[in-house]
């Protein structure tokens, strides 16, 4: 419950405060957000499976974000930034879908 409240608070703060993102981080923010979404869905699935460990969640969340941003950064340096970020988004999207399917099986029994 506290976690859901945290998510809501983040959205509200982001909408109200409209902080300026530094230009260096700006290209990586969308990919980082998608990676974090993947980690959250994975955590939700683990919780429903009863194997949720907060340390694992924290590590996977942070490493997902960092690795995703790193891949995009590397791609930018190599000149294939847009293709590589497309690839990252596709992979993370597939993972999110499979996690969502597992969650759905738990919640709706179907």
């Amino acid at each position, binding site marked *: 419950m*506290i976690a859901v409240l945290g998510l809501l608070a983040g959205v509200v703060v982001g909408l109200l405060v409209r902080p300026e993102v530094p230009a260096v981080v700006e290209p990586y923010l969308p990919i980082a957000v998608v990676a974090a979404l993947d980690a959250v869905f994975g955590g939700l699935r683990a919780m429903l499976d009863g194997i949720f460990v907060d340390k694992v969640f924290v590590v996977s969340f942070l490493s997902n974000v960092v690795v995703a941003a790193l891949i995009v950064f590397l791609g930018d340096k190599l000149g294939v930034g847009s293709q590589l970020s497309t690839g990252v988004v596709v992979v993370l999207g597939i993972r999110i879908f499979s996690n969502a399917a597992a969650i759905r099986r738990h919640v709706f029994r179907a």
Partner: protein
Amino acid sequence: MSANDTPPEEPNVPEQPLEEGKTQAGPVAEETGRQRLAAGLWPPRVSRAQLIVALLLFVLGLGLAIQVRSNSDSSALRGARQEDLVRILDELDGRTKRLEDEKQRLEDQRRELESSSNQAEEARRQTVEKERQLGILAGTVAAQGPGITLRITDPTGQVQSDQLLDTLQELRAAGAEAIQINGVRIVAGSYFSDENGGVGIDGKKITQPYEFKVIGKPQDLEPALNIPGGVVQTLEKEQATVAVTRSAKIVVDALRAAKQPDYARSSSG
């Protein structure tokens, strides 16, 4: 994770057959995922795990909101990469140049069309003017202007076609521009003939009194007829009565059909 806050619509009995695919996740699954979710959501408990997850989710929500916001900002160029921006700028430059070229071309075309339509208008005006002049000469259009009326009454029938022809020549020599005699327009190819009891012009018989309507300068035409030994005197010798009247407005409205030559074609143009 207590089992005693089970929702009432959730009987605990048929648990094993529903958990068939998930045995590797929880080997001793004494409660379902749905129950775990409900237990996690309510009642709210402050634990280390909850707080850490709340912090991470707060960061996620923040990033999500910022990204959505900057994406829905007016300029879609925010957050675009440098190489993309350079490419977009290049494309815009090229497009501007193309459009400028096109504008230049269209303006040239417009100028050309305007000048050519002016020329065509001028040519058309001149053609109309010329047509009117030629139409007066050829007798295909009516004419009006200052001139004289010449009326020859010949009670004895002595006036022949050659006297009328002399009169006509005299009038032409004095600068007559349009002539009609008794409703017959006189043109370059007109001819006189003697009919029995009258005169024919271009095959049309006319009877006296012969009335000439002449457009020209009256001050020239009248003296030309009245000179001693001239037309009037000659006609009066034949017992005819001649009356010459000047007029500021003579209307020559007898027309002649335009004749298209059968063989001759204009060689110019």
